[in-house]
């Protein structure tokens, strides 16, 4: 035995409850990174044996066999075979199997056992198996497989100590096993798995599973779609309604902080930089944290409950018509939170052309970075009233409309792409449908915290940097005191914006917007901080102007037509460095990201233009 910390890999079928087990074993002691060279997420963490010795755990992507069908499944194979670059072969495997689906999950378990590594089987989700009327004999299973079998209920933290002890024992007493040849073909492998499962099953009462009852409604050809649409509508309304109080609270807090800095620091360069640059800019974005978290919360809940696969099933017919598959629905729905994890989630799409098309349309899903822009403009220009006496808010309705435009646009683009640049075979769609499960507060909380942290880190780095640079460009050179030219127009940034303004003037954009669009290339939400920073400088020492909110100031400076055109622009504009970078990495080159940026800017320009000209024609200019 080496003295190094033993590394244990969790491996198993999709839906075996691996991630919950990983969370239960490691708690918050997790590190999420990427495997070098590939963009597959590497989840690692630490735990300790009963006597305090540490062990490191890694959670491998779920797969059905050691023959991979996609990029993340290939990582699982390479890690357990010790072929993954930069990753040592695990000292032991914990094979996680779903107690209620032994027939299927034992196939992969048998294949893994044949590798001859120290192995422990975690017979997971035993409570759900019992609910389904299944009584199992773990000892019998252990005898049949020749390795320890530990019953676990990861979500209730049951069996964890026993599992760790079994791993310890398996490593300590491991005799290099003669690698057992796995059954020669799939049919005999399945036969063997079924025979073992039967032997380990003491009693099987047929109970009508409530999953089936729920599915008869949720997967109904018509009712199912109505439910899906209603869920998404509630989600977007909630983003608006529930985030208001915490957002006001954050906004107030930032105001207090700005006031405090004004009190302590003497007027000058540093005070301007902090109050008008950093706090105004970063603050304008941080305010949207509650909304982003609510959106993520919904997505995580849908995923953890097992509903997401149902949504994919319902949407497959529609997505199939434009040449995509229901598989793409999950990455696309994740893209509503952020296109970066969405594009990364396309790795699970086996067909290359299908995957590429999904990547190219992912930025059309209304990501959380657009929320600051939408919220600001909708809040300023759309009256906060309900529609015709119903409880539906007009603002929420406009937001829903913007989301819908993105979706419809994405489907049309996919339809065109699949008939031109990404022509190929009809995409396939094969997926396991998990049982319904109550999402666990702990798992959801942990994932939410990881998302919040990523957002805050982004606000602290990219956004802070771009707003500071923008503040400098806006503040210098100083306009002469007796000049009637505004500082914002006199500055370096003002001159750059004047150049851009000539291009965007026809679609109704003014100097403010041209100015905001440049730094927003880094990230869409920077458009809001840029408007905030420019306004803060513009307001200067005019107390009345300072007291006005950004929205109120915009009302005075933009027409409704301009505001609507601005919204339409952001439905399409690919203004996000991270998305472009991840697309380059996922498609191995500059060809596709450049194509994506090109077609999206063209669409954005057209959409904003059409919106503006139409609105002006209706007298809203």
């Amino acid at each position, binding site marked *: 035995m080496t003295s190094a910390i033993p590394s244990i890999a969790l491996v198993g079928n999709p839906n075996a409850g691996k991630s919950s087990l990983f969370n239960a074993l490691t708690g918050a002691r997790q590190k999420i990174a990427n495997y070098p060279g590939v963009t597959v997420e590497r989840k690692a963490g630490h735990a300790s044996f009963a006597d305090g010795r540490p062990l490191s755990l890694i959670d491998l992507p779920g797969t*059905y*066999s050691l*023959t991979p*069908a996609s990029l993340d499944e290939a990582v699982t194979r390479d890690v357990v075979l010790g072929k993954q670059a930069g990753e040592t072969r695990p000292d032991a495997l914990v094979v996680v199997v779903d107690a*209620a*689906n032994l*027939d*299927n999950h034992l*196939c992969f378990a048998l294949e893994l056992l044949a590798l001859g590594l120290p192995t422990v089987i975690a017979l997971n989700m035993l409570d759900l198996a019992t609910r*389904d009327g299944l009584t199992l004999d773990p000892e019998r299973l252990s005898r049949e497989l020749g390795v320890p079998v530990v019953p676990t209920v990861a979500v209730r933290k049951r069996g964890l100590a026993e599992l760790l002890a079994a791993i310890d024992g398996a490593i300590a007493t491991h005799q290099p096993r003669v690698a057992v040849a796995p059954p020669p073909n*799939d*049919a005999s492998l*399945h036969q063997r798995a079924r025979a073992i499962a039967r032997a380990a099953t003491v009693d099987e009462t047929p109970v009508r599973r409530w*999953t*089936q009852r729920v*599915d008869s409604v949720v*997967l109904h*050809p*018509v009712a*199912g*779609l109505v439910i899906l649409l209603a869920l998404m509508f509630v989600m977007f309304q909630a983003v608006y309604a529930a985030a208001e109080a915490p957002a006001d609270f954050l906004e107030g807090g930032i105001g207090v902080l700005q006031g405090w800095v004004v009190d302590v620091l003497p007027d000058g360069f540093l005070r301007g930089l902090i109050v008008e640059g950093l706090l105004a800019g970063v603050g304008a974005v941080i305010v949207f944290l509650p909304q982003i978290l609510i959106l993520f919360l919904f997505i995580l809940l849908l995923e953890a409950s097992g509903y997401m*696969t149902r949504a*994919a*099933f*319902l*949407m*497959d*017919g*529609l997505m*199939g*018509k434009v040449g995509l598959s*229901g598989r793409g629905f999950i990455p696309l729905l994740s893209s509503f939170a952020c296109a970066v994890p969405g594009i990364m989630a396309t790795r699970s799409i*086996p067909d290359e052309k299908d995957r590429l098309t999904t990547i190219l349309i992912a930025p059309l899903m209304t990501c959380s970075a657009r929320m600051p822009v939408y919220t600001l403009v909708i809040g300023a220009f759309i009256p906060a009233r309900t529609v015709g006496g119903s409880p539906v808010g007009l603002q929420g309705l406009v937001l829903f409309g913007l989301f819908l435009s993105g979706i419809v646009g994405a489907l049309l683009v996919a339809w065109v792409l699949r008939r031109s640049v990404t022509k190929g075979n*009809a995409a*396939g*769609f*094969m*997926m*396991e*449908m998990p*049982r319904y499960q109550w999402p666990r507060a702990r798992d959801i909380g942990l994932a939410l915290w990881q998302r919040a942290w990523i957002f805050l880190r982004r606000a602290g780095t990219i956004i802070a940097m771009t707003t500071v640079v923008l503040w400098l460009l806006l503040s210098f050179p100083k306009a002469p005191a007796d000049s009637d030219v505004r500082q914002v127009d006199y500055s370096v940034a003002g001159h750059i914006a004047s150049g851009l303004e000539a291009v965007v003037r026809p679609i109704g954009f003014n100097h403010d917007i041209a100015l905001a669009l440049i730094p927003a290339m880094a990230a869409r939400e920077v458009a809001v901080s840029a408007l905030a920073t420019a306004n803060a400088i513009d307001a200067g020492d005019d107390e009345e102007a300072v007291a006005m909110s950004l929205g109120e100031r915009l009302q005075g400076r933009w027409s409704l037509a301009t505001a609507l055109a601005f919204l339409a622009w952001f439905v399409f504009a690919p203004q996000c460095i991270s998305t472009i970078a991840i697309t380059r990495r996922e498609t191995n080159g500059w060809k596709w990201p450049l194509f994506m940026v090109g077609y999206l800017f063209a669409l954005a320009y057209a959409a904003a233009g059409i919106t503006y000209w139409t609105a002006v024609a209706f007298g809203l200019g």
Partner: protein
Amino acid sequence: MIAKLDSSPLGISVRIARIDWAAMSQDEGRRLREFGLLEGCEVTPRHRGSIFSRDPLALTIGRMQVIIRARQAAAIEVEPAA
């Protein structure tokens, strides 16, 4: 009586009589087998598509529920379960 899985009525168990592996790609065939869809096993078609299309097909096999496309289901010949 031999029928194809893509046109089997929902909710009625059938036994897989033959699968035309040549009608699908190798990867698709392997994934079907990984799901446990093999000659001789019993499956029950459960749900089919939405108002958009008859695709895809959800079926139960053992204690699992899986989704496949009608194109693959059309390559699977089934007979009434015993």
